[in-house]
């Protein structure tokens, strides 16, 4: 039992923060992201023996997180319970005053832009932009075809670009 516990602990250490980041970007709420992470780990651990050591383990974990986040987003849209970003607290220490304000504003604009995406667009967008997975990996994690993933990513990227542009983000200053 002790060995099992240590094994699970190591498993959590290895994947915990990465999967938390994905869950957070999908649901935009720390507590909910942590709950999704918790449930994902328990679900994954039940079938851990099958995937242990497999090269596909991270794809499989992403798939669990994405599916649980979908469930969560559906529940949230039904209950209209929107307490987003209540604990949103970006690390300001590394920025000086003006930069921190600009960065916080951009963070808010990006968050709002990503919120306009559909469930599927959001999952593809998050796995591509933040996790930098290949289209093939995203297709495996979202149970979709590569062509569909590419088209979904392009639509999502266009939507976010237009939203940021409407919000007055000046792209030429970024490149």
């Amino acid at each position, binding site marked *: *039992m002790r060995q*099992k*516990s240590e094994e*699970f*602990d190591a498993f*959590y*250490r290895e994947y*915990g923060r990465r999967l*938390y*980041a994905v869950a*957070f*970007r999908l649901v935009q709420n*720390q507590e909910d992201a*942590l709950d999704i*992470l*918790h449930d994902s*780990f*328990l679900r994954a*651990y*039940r079938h851990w023996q099958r995937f242990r050591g497999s090269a596909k383990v991270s794809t499989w974990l992403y798939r669990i997180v994405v599916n649980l986040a979908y469930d969560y987003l559906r529940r949230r849209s039904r209950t209209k319970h929107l307490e987003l970003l209540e*604990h*949103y*607290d*970006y*690390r300001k220490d590394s920025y000086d005053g003006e930069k921190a304000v600009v*960065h916080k504003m*951009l*963070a808010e604009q*990006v*968050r709002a832009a*990503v919120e306009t995406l559909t469930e599927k667009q959001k999952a593809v967008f998050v796995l591509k*932009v*933040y996790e930098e997975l290949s*289209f093939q990996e995203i297709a495996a994690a979202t149970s979709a075809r590569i062509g569909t993933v*590419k088209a979904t*990513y*392009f639509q999502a*990227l*266009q939507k*976010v*670009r237009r939203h*940021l*542009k409407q919000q007055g*983000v000046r*792209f*030429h200053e*970024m*490149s």
Partner: protein
Amino acid sequence: MKCRDVERYAVDFLEKTLPQEVVSQIEAHLRDCPGCARLLSELSATVKACRSVPVPEFPEAAWLLRRERAVSDAVRFIRFRSLAATLASAAVLAVSIVAVRIAGDRTSPPSGWEASLSPDAIVEAVDYLETDSNIPIRTLAHPR
């Protein structure tokens, strides 16, 4: 190459996964088409802007607490699964024993059935064998 082709290849172009030949065609188009050049530049800047937004840090102590909770839940699950497996094995064994006994009762003759015959029935059977079938029953019972 046309503008709609640039859109079609846009994500692969940004990912730098296109063959050099296609990249050259797109670049040639971009030199003559400011609209497409702006689109690709803005898409690239969008990715950059999004990546610059970090996930809010979670306090280390709270993180450890969550991890411990997950570990203890996993251990509880493993214990529950072992107990459930043991109970399931015991249940299968019990059902098998009962099934074997029921099947045995159905296929074997009732024990001591001969004893249930009445003396009259035995006498009648012996008479039949001696008189109607011509079998010397005492010879059968005490062969020489």
